[in-house]
């Protein structure tokens, strides 16, 4: 369906990534946000708290991030699209209830404007070191979806996409922005409401008598009933059967948890969203995401000027990982270069898929600023030299 015009600020604006993300959420139909202030993410909720009262949305500043995430899961069970916004330390506190969202299959969006870590780290400066936490941060097996924008424009566009994916797959979607994009101001074009495609909550059409909250109906994602519609259903963070009742057995665990994993892993190419450039005849391929992808573009241009056929894969949906694409490339390129603002996270995933068929060069540092393009260039040249 098309976006509700009440939440769409159509026009060309000069916005930072945080504001653009807030606008994306409102355009996507988000009407409940619970959050706790933390640099560098707070501008997202500042924007929303100013605009929500004019469009039927409610923002509440909770007492901490544990409460924020729990409130978002509760909010989403009313059918109201819900989101929370945080950065590293708060993201850590949210992990338990992100697991609850995954277990209860609750559509919601968690924005993490990444800063340097660990611990309090660099509150006002950029990092990309929460990428593995986004995937594995809560205990147990589950799968999530994670996106990474490279500009304020994408902060808007991809926040809409994050909400849509959370509705389709009924998972918490991690919106892995970074401080640089969050605090960077650029031109952001917000289309007319009728040009923005949004996915509404897929409510069950089954009768109250026959509906079971976790029974499948020809699709790995069960149908949704919202609180207050008379279905009088039960849901729990415990391992549960299709009635949503706790059932402590290995068989039930297999059925329940395997599906949480399968509904994402099985989606394959449907969830692949990358930007590929010049990979057809590339010798070296640079794999990057977020702000680092923009810095890498400079390095790629410089490498090409020096005669090295260099390709680029920019990860837009980072999790699930575009396994097929990377596996295929690993069979025909001389090496991957993976720049990221950490000491090796996505590069490990690339190494896993390269499986020794080509070398993987990680270019990392602890954050605080972006890469020098020359540092990435150096690795591209090194990779090309090894290849030759």
């Amino acid at each position, binding site marked *: 369906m098309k976006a509700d015009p009440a939440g769409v600020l159509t026009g060309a604006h*000069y916005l*930072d990534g945080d504001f653009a993300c807030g606008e994306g959420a409102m355009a996507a139909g988000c009407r409940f946000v619970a959050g706790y202030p933390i640099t560098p993410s707070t501008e997202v909720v500042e924007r929303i708290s100013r605009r929500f009262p004019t469009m039927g949305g409610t923002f509440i500043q909770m007492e901490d991030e544990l409460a924020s995430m729990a409130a978002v899961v509760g909010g989403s069970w009313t059918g109201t699209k819900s989101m929370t916004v945080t950065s590293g330390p708060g993201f850590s506190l949210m992990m338990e209830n992100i697991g609850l969202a995954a277990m209860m299959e609750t559509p919601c969006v968690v924005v993490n404007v990444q800063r340097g870590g660990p611990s309090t780290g660099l509150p*006002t400066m950029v990092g990309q070191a929460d990428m593995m936490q986004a995937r594995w941060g809560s205990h147990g097996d589950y799968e999530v979806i994670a996106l990474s924008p490279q500009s304020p424009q994408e902060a808007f566009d991809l926040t809409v996409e994050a909400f849509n994916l959370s509705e389709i797959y009924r998972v918490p979607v991690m919106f892995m922005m970074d401080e640089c994009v969050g605090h*960077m101001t*650029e031109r952001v074009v917000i289309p007319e409401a009728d040009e923005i495609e949004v996915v509404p909550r897929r409510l069950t059409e089954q009768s109250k008598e026959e509906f079971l909250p976790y029974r499948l109906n020809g699709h790995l994602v069960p149908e949704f009933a919202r609180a207050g519609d008379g279905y009088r259903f039960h849901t729990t963070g415990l391992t549960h059967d299709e009635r949503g009742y706790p059932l402590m057995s290995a068989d039930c665990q297999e059925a329940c948890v395997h599906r949480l994993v399968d509904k994402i892993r099985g989606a394959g190419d449907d969830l692949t969203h990358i930007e590929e450039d010049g990979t057809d005849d590339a010798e070296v391929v640079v794999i990057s995401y977020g702000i680092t992808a*923009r810095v890498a573009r400079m390095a790629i241009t410089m490498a090409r000027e020096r005669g090295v056929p260099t390709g680029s894969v920019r990860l837009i949906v980072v999790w699930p990982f575009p396994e097929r694409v990377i596996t295929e490339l690993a069979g025909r390129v001389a090496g991957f270069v993976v720049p990221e603002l950490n000491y090796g996270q996505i590069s490990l995933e690339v190494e896993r898929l390269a499986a020794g068929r080509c070398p993987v060069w990680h270019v990392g540092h602890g954050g605080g600023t*972006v890469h*020098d393009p*020359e540092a990435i260039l150096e690795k591209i040249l090194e990779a090309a030299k090894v290849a030759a």
Partner: protein
Amino acid sequence: MGKERDQSERTPGRIEIRITGFGGQGVVLAGHIIGCACAIHADKQATLIQSFGPEARGSACSATLAVSDGEIFYPYIRRNDIFVAMSSEGYEKYHHELRDDGMLIYEQDLVHPTFKPGQKAAGVPSTRIAESLGRAIVQNIVMVGFFAGVTRLVPEEAMREAVLGSVPAGTEELNLKAFSAGLDYARREITTPTLDLKRPPAEGVPA
């Protein structure tokens, strides 16, 4: 990171700007208006980065802009083409970044620059001008007007639109006056858009 390298190489079509001042002078708003004028009201791309946190609340605030006719990849600036200094501490902290052929724009009552041959410089008593309009707080908008007149980076109408769209409701008139005062000062006192530093900056406050 941090390898020694030659950063003097320019990216064609790209202009790098740093604006600095002390907290409360409206450094970020000035950057926002110039960026907005380029990216929304003129046919350019502009990436604004502001320093945040304790630094932003302390004495030397700063905002940087990369302005380009094409797409901007690298968001930070490396050597600035234009350096706007509204406080002496900000000037001291960042003046070494200005390119040898760059342009310095400064608050002439607050900043006492060391002129370098090859660099251009244009001073404006923006605080005094703002005070003469009744509100020292619009000093940054006077500076934006002066910037518009000196650099001619975008048509002045684009800059005026950006001022209108960025200032708080109810303060438009005052801010437009401040903008015009800065612009007029540049027109009256600075004869060429790229002022030679050998020509001493003009003194005096417009009536």
